[in-house]
């Protein structure tokens, strides 16, 4: 188990070290760290520290968050199709961003764009509703009802999203659509640092859940018979996974695929034990998104490609290959 996690860790480290060195512009590492050149004149250092490094850090955070949130939702809802968007959190976050873009609520707060702030608020509202649903669940609401409520919430936010876009200017609609394709070019460390706090807190909370996730995956009755306080664990899992989703979407936009398929890829590689699956998903999710973003910013010239388009392009065939290899 330790060797498997160490293997994933080594891969993540390797990719994270290599990714800032690769891009459409050629830079020299010696020049990047040459302190004799003032930073304002050192283009190589700026490309490395301003353009690439925050982008790699953002990719690690977003990829890890979405993958772990996917693992938690799939285990607790006992549904392989569950994802960070299943309970409407991504669409809630998207709605917040689209409102700010469309109505030009363009006030930056403490140097942070209003768009990620509104996006996080949108996810928080969705989380509030999810919380209310989990409270209702205490009185006997089934997982199926929770899933259906999530689908309804997602559709509701999606409809509001379209309504807001219709009210806006066509240039705003264009900007909203581009935001929805996802972007990790954050351009500063502020956004990354702000997201780091809730993501770390949620990951720490999820780290206490592997045994519970193993048992709940088999059914709540089995978990309760082993002494698990299922309701408490469920609340902790739902809130943690929701915070991960909200933070990830507000930082990078609603990047598809990572939250639903990465958990399955990891399970195909390491099995179903959540003591391995959770850290492996965190590491592999981050690594996968760093690689996707690397492809998005290098393989399509200066104009680049939205990272959200690359995740499925790269991950889809990989997942299918893994699936056929495993079950042939």
């Amino acid at each position, binding site marked *: 188990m330790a060797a498997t996690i160490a293997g994933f860790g080594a891969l993540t480290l390797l990719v994270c070290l290599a990714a800032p060195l690769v891009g459409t512009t050629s830079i020299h590492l010696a020049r990047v760290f040459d302190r004799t050149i003032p930073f304002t004149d050192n*283009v190589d250092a700026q490309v490395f520290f301003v353009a690439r490094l925050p982008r790699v850090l953002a990719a690690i955070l977003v990829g890890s968050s979405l993958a772990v949130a996917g693992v938690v939702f799939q285990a607790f809802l006992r549904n392989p199709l569950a994802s960070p968007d299943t309970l409407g959190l991504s669409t809630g976050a998207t709605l917040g961003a689209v409102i700010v873009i469309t109505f030009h609520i363009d006030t930056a*707060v403490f140097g942070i*764009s*209003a768009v990620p702030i509104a996006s996080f608020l949108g996810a928080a509202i969705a989380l509030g509703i999810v919380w209310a649903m989990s409270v209702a669940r205490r009185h006997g609401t089934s997982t199926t009802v929770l899933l259906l409520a999530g689908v309804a919430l997602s559709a509701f936010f999606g409809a509001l999203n379209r309504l807001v876009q219709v009210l806006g200017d*066509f240039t705003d609609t*264009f900007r909203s659509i581009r935001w929805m394709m996802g972007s990790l070019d954050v351009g*500063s460390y502020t956004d990354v640092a702000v997201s780091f706090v809730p993501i770390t807190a949620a990951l720490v909370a999820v780290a206490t859940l592997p045994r519970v996730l193993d048992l709940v995956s088999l059914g709540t009755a089995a978990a309760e018979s082993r002494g698990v306080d299922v309701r408490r664990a469920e609340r902790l899992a739902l809130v943690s996974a929701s915070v991960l989703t909200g933070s990830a979407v507000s930082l990078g936009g609603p990047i598809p695929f990572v939250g639903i398929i990465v958990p399955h890829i990891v399970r195909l590689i390491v099995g179903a034990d959540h003591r391995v699956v959770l850290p492996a998903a965190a590491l592999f999710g981050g690594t996968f998104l760093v690689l996707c973003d690397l492809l998005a910013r290098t393989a399509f*010239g*200066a*104009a680049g490609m939205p990272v959200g388009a690359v995740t499925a392009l790269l991950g889809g065939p990989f997942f299918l290959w893994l699936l056929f290899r495993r079950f042939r």
Partner: protein
Amino acid sequence: MRRRALRTIVAATVASLAAVFPVRSVGLQADGDPGSVRLQADRATVRLKPDTTNRGTSTDGGAHRIISIIPATTEMLFAMGAGDRVVAVGSYDRFPAAVEQLPRVGALLDPNVERILSLRPDLVIVYGTQNDLRTQLDRARVPYFPYVHRGLPDITQTIRAVGDRVGVSAAAKTLADGIEKQLADVRARVAGAARPKTLLVFGRESGSLRNIEASGGVGFLHDMLETAGGIDILGDLKQQSVTLSTEVVLARAPDVILELRYARGDTTAASDLRAWDALASVPAVKNRRVLLLQGEEFVVPGPRVGAATERLGRALHPDRFK
């Protein structure tokens, strides 16, 4: 029972169609001109010809009840003196002030066909890509003019074409000639001046450098920039708009960054330019040549394009416009 239900459905369908297409009697009849037909309704007779010019269904006479759902063509109509013929406009029309009083009939994504038909237009100016709307207008026998959004030279061509169609050719020609003269004047003023490498930005998230939207190597913004004496640093990218990464801005090192803002009441735009300070090695940032230009004329390829190009020229070459 079933038959009665069927009769009810058919009657309801006919009544609905009659409400959408309120023509009580229609007859088609060939006349002397081969390939043309005359549509007779009880209110009016409109001679129709097949569309051989990619300009939609045409009428011989001028238009007097015009709906323009495109801000650029609405501005053109008012500027050529046909504003009093405009009976409705699109959702995004803001200029001139007179359009605020006119009914709105949707826009590119959400044209309200029922509203358009109910206003009984004799010409509807639509986007060329609005195929569904064009089909519906064809079906309702309403003439239309399909507008195509392209480069700077196409703006004056469109003005002349719209003028011919509306029946104010002379005024349209005067307007188009005036714009071409304005553009030629800007070109002459900046001729021979050193052309700064310029990044023309028309969108980004405020307070950050995320999702920078810039003009690429085609389209009217690119043409305006080149006319105003700048070199478009994204000129090699054959797209109208490019979502740009900070790395590309650092690598292409523009001498000038021109940021266009078009939202009304945007009071934070000037202070928001500080976000560019993060890219300290870029010459435009180093030399304080990150400039803000506010006005919706920069995003509407209409008759104000000459004045907008002059503003770009003044920003890039202030010494040439003293």
